[in-house]
């Protein structure tokens, strides 16, 4: 599985300026909605579901990365977006470090395997410090897409 298989490039937010973690999640879900990836009036329900998941334990996975996520019947395939917080945000990550890169995932309830593979894909690339540093420095959605493509093609070592 590649990052660009499930990241909605139209929904990337390269300069999130959230008030807090909850606001960051709401802005990313809104971006997915605006890009046409969330049908109907499910945006508030999806924000609530992602926040409820965060209550069970932070999705900050280290290296300045968080993967807030939920399974929701509003989507019929795995979809995701990327948000960059250049100043960092407190995400209550286990390592205590701020988060700079957010990958928000929404997957259909029944597709556990794709969800796990998406988490594997994200973590495999983002454990690479070089890729993380390049991504943190990206200022436009186009730069983010190009970096995701380079990562998918194994051009970042």
């Amino acid at each position, binding site marked *: 599985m590649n990052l660009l298989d499930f990241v909605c490039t139209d929904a990337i937010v390269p300069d999130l300026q959230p008030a807090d973690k909850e606001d960051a999640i709401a802005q990313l879900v809104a971006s997915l909605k605006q890009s046409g990836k969330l049908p109907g009036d499910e945006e508030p329900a999806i924000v609530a579901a992602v926040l409820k998941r965060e209550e*069970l*334990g*932070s*999705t900050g*996975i*280290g*290296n300045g*990365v968080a*993967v807030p*996520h939920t399974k929701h019947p509003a989507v019929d395939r795995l979809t995701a977006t990327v948000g960059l917080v250049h100043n960092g945000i407190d995400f209550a990550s*286990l390592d205590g470090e701020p988060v700079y890169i957010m990958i928000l995932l929404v997957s259909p309830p029944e597709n*556990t*395997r794709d*969800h*796990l*593979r998406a*988490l*594997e894909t*994200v*973590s*495999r690339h*983002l*454990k690479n410090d070089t890729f993380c540093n390049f991504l943190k420095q990206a200022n436009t959605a186009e730069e983010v897409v190009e970096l995701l493509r380079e990562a998918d093609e194994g051009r970042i070592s």
Partner: protein
Amino acid sequence: MADERNTAAEADAEATRTVTVGSPDGLHLRPITLVTRKAAAYDCALTIRKGDVSADAKAMIQLLTLAAACGDTVTVIGVGPDAERAVTEIADLIAATSAD
């Protein structure tokens, strides 16, 4: 002298256990959080291996790269103080049918 020998033996202690992932959704973020928290409580080095992929049990971002699904087999390896106990506790968490 005896204390020194015990300390040296502890530092060299090794333990390994192979288990089947019990969580119906596999080793997704919640069970991995539990494993990482448990591993962080120990001083020994802890590695979880699935096939050719190895991950530091104290690093969530590495554990996610295992993509271990329900029914997959993984090996927990501990080296250092309390390795036996740490490996047993982590293997039990991975084998639990629900890690919630």
